[in-house]
């Protein structure tokens, strides 16, 4: 088990009477890549700024390896930040930007030169030391910002949506590169993003935030496959929610649920269930199977939209009771029935065991909150 590096306990922060962080607890482990994920205004950037020391909490403590950092100014925290728009010093060369942290430590000139050159080599910018930031492309500026932030060998690197200004292809390259850097340096990365795909593909653990509270903390797989609530389910990836009703509780292992008049047997969920209880049945688009209309299994509907996505074929299907279903299927060229036309009647089913159940009661409030966001 990894050790706790930074622990936040009972952190609260208000801006002009608006609660941004609400009594939040979080333990960040040594050497992990942890992502703070959430919609804008969820408090993820504020949380990062509290760790960096740019803001001070109204309440709560921040400790780093047992040492209280809550009121330590940013210049005396052993953490460094990569800013959203890089914040490179425009009047300094790339070399001087990267050297800034070491100059502040009053290191000898030789050591500075050596370490800056090593850091620039690490981000593959050896030949750009003399350039000014504005002479570099976005991706190059990003690398300089990273080299500058890791030069002091911080215990932890805080990254505030560092890839949001880059185009899609460059973003993918930088994602891979950041992961490589994190492995090589062995530094803990705290990464802020609103891009759930980025969060899932890069992190060891994901913190899903909303309204200044942690909605879920888990591995990317847990967050995607076993969301703790409707918000997480909807924010992380696409999701279909079917209204279900518990028909019978079969001992300790399974329950029978009535969905669209079909009786399906599911694994018993972690929460309390009773007969007649309304439920949400969550199915990801890739869990859905589109079948021929004469298939005996499934629920009848019509195809209303088809989007060719290269590796998958995404469809929107209107069920006869009005429910809209998103389906995402991999191509199977050997299946003649695969290519449905618009308006064609089909049946919708899913692979048993891939569903995820969520209790109904919180649903309304959650949905309203989501609509607000």
């Amino acid at each position: 088990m990894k050790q706790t590096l930074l622990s936040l306990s009972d952190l609260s922060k208000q801006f002009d009477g608006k609660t941004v962080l609400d009594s939040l607890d979080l333990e960040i482990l040594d050497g992990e890549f942890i992502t703070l994920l959430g919609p804008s205004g969820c408090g993820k950037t504020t949380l990062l700024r509290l760790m960096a020391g740019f803001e001070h909490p109204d309440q709560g403590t921040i400790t780093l390896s047992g040492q209280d950092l809550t009121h330590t100014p940013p210049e005396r925290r052993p953490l460094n930040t990569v800013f959203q728009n890089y914040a490179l010093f425009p009047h300094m060369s790339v070399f001087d930007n990267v050297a800034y942290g070491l100059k502040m430590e009053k290191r000898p000139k030789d050591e500075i030169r050596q370490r800056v050159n090593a850091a620039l080599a690490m981000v593959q910018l050896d030949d750009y030391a003399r350039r000014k930031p504005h002479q570099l492309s976005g991706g190059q500026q990003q690398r300089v910002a990273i080299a500058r932030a890791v030069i002091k060998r911080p215990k932890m690197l805080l990254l505030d949506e560092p890839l949001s200004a880059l185009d899609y292809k460059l973003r993918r390259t930088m994602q891979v590169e950041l992961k490589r850097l994190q492995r090589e340096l062995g530094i803990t990365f705290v990464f802020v993003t609103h891009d759930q795909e980025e969060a899932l593909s890069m992190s060891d653990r994901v913190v899903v935030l909303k309204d200044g509270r942690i909605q879920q903390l888990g591995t990317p797989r847990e967050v995607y496959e076993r969301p703790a609530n409707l918000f997480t389910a909807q924010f992380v990836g696409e999701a279909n929610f079917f209204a279900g009703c518990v028909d019978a509780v079969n001992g300790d292992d399974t329950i029978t649920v009535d969905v669209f008049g079909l009786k399906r047997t599911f694994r018993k969920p972690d929460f309390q269930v009773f007969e007649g209880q309304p439920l949400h049945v969550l199915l990801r688009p890739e869990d859905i199977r589109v079948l021929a209309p004469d298939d005996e299994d499934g629920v009848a509907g019509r195809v209303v939209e088809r989007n060719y996505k290269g590796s998958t074929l995404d469809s929107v299907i209107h069920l006869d009771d009005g429910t809209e279903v998103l389906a995402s299927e991999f191509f199977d060229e050997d299946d003649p029935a695969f290519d449905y036309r618009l308006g064609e009647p089909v049946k919708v089913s899913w692979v048993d065991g891939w569903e995820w159940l969520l209790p109904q009661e919180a649903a309304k409030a959650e949905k309203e909150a989501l609509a607000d966001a």
Partner: protein
Amino acid sequence: MSRWLPRTYLTLVYMLLYVPIMVLVVFSFNESRTGYEWGGFSLRWYEALFNNRAMVQAMWNSLWLALSAATVSTVIGALTALALHRYRFRGKRVLNGMLFVVMMSPEIVLAISLLGLFLLVGLQLGYVSLLLAHVTFCLPFVVITVMARLNGFDEALPEAARDLGASDFIMTRTVLLPVIMPALLAGWLLGFTLSLDDVVVSTFVSGPSYEILPLRIYSMVRVGLKPEVNALGTLLLVFSLVMLMLSQWILLRSKR
């Protein structure tokens, strides 16, 4: 036709702007004493100018005054702009608005009120009164120039410096000041020019102990145009051109 018209128009506009200056420069090298007829090339008016001790003294006085007024108002103005930009405090809007009042109010009003003030506190009219007056009317221009630069300033830069271990003071010295330097320079130059050619306020608050160039020229031309004034004007023109090029050069260098 379609090309001819705009070209003529442009030529006329530029002629309107530059012909008087050209006339001034050309006639500063005129041998002839009387009026505006060409009497051959000569440097005699430049010679006369430099032999006019009162004139040379007034020139130095003006330069020294402009230099000190620009410097003092840049220091105060930059600090004011930083305070207005960084901090939230009571009366901030009033302070901000008052700067515009000074800038917009007619110069004659400022002149009369400054004179009244100086007489009231018993300040002898001379260099000090001129300096105080010039700093007063230069200040809002400096503040506004620096504020404009600060508004485009990336707020993450000071944070990045602090994050990398700089104290507030070191951050200001190594990041904030270098980044706003072009604005400080522009503000300083603006103050320098404003001070150098001010007549209205200076007329009221200057005393016999400290004569400055604009007032001297003004009193000279009241009794008739002397060719010396042309020579002086040409020198001032060259001086301001050099200043302009210098500032452009510094700005270009700071961008690189």
